[in-house]
């Protein structure tokens, strides 16, 4: 039996009195990849940030790994079990790639420096960051390398779930490929992931389910083929038509 790792129930968030999330409900099984699509301002980033409590939701329920997250007092231990990969990488700019990955291991997981470095190196190798880059600072790395270090930083913590917030939106196409490639490998290795992205090709190949979020509401959900290629909702269809135009998906040579 597959167990539910995350259950989000009727989640509401108001920012400056305006509802950004309006009763979002969905769940994620262990080993699953969910892709969230939707226009800018739909509340996608807010939804992800609510899950690991970077933003406190106003109403609703989040159950992660059997625990009612919003009732729990120790938000740090919840966060340490949920990885987060940001659009702008957000590496610590005064630390080397290796130090970026080790920090959480030594300061949160309280591993010894030696153990932490061993784990960090494994994680870096897993995302294709080789030894000569370990002692480089973020500003000395390409965008794709930075994002892969950021994925390694999340991965090294051995999270149960990784949240991706438009991880490739700040990258050029070649670098997008190297990041998506790493993410695809993670999905194949049955890492549980929620990915906010505009990469519908990635969603087609990897997602177990696609959610379409607009205006704080899930308008449509289902298998990627269904939501992306033949959506029922009029708004979703309009969005997908434009996406297909941009990415040429129906001509079959996306990526």
């Amino acid at each position, binding site marked *: 039996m597959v167990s539910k790792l995350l259950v989000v129930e009727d989640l509401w968030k108001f920012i400056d009195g305006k509802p950004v999330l309006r009763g979002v409900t969905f769940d994620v099984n262990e080993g699953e990849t969910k892709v969230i699509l939707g226009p800018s301002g739909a509340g996608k980033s807010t939804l992800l940030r609510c899950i690991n409590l970077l933003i406190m939701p106003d109403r609703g329920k989040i159950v992660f790994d059997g625990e009612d997250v919003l009732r729990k007092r120790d938000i740090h231990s919840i*966060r*340490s079990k949920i990885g987060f990969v*940001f659009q702008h990488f957000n590496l610590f700019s005064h630390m080397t790639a290796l130090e970026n990955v080790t920090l959480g291991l030594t300061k949160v997981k309280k591993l010894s420096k030696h153990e932490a470095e061993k784990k960090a190196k494994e994680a870096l190798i897993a995302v294709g960051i080789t030894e000569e880059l370990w002692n480089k*600072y973020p*500003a*000395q790395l390409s965008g794709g390398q930075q994002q892969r270090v950021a994925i390694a930083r999340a991965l090294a913590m051995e999270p149960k779930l990784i949240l991706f917030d438009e991880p490739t939106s700040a990258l050029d196409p070649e670098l997008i490929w190297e990041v998506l490639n790493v993410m695809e490998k993670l999905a194949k290795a049955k890492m549980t992931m929620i990915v906010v992205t505009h990469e519908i090709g990635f969603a087609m190949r990897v997602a177990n389910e696609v959610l379409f979020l607009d205006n704080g509401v899930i308008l449509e959900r289902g298998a990627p083929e269904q939501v992306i290629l033949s959506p029922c909702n009029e708004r979703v269809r309009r969005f997908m038509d434009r996406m297909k135009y941009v990415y040429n998906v129906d001509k079959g040579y996306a990526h």
Partner: protein
Amino acid sequence: MLYVISKYWPFLLEGLKTAFIITFTSYTIGFAGGICIAIARAFLHKVLKIIMHIYVELFRGTPMLIQLFFVYYALPEVGIKFDPVLSAIIAIGLNSAAYQSEYIRSALSSIPYGEIEAAYSLGLTKLSTMLYIALPQAIRIAIPTLTNEAIYLFKYSSIAYFVTAPELMYMGKLIATRTFLYVEVYTVLAMIYVAFSIVLSGVARYIERRLQIPGYIV
């Protein structure tokens, strides 16, 4: 001028030593205090925040000389007595803490919020995030202003003269009244102050270079 230097250099050296001690110690107090205040203002609950705010405004808003007189002349009234040098160190140190806290606070607010979020998302507490992510970067950003502060303090150490601490200014005055060579003596003093300030900014530039993050332009 040469006469002043050749005859009275032991006095001048002694004065320089005292001025240096006052500057160095009060700067260190100011730096440590400034960091504590800046962190406290980012964390503490309302009442303590307001107290910190009042402290900063009070010490920025009153002349340092008044603060010094207060420490040296008023505190003994309530039984707290310090010698002149210590009084100067305390007064200048407390004053500098107020300024340095502001420099560090403004540097802290320039740290990209994304990095703070990234630290939180790893499970780091607010304090760890401050100590390992925000502060190390903020101090780097604040180095030029913190250097300015050090140079200010070196010059301001001369106000210790008013409470008879035997620093450079005090020694100068002593030599001048003895020799009546006021212009010469004060020119020599000015030159010492300038030379020392140049050395200080050189040291600061060295520190800045050492701490520079490769590939990163602030």
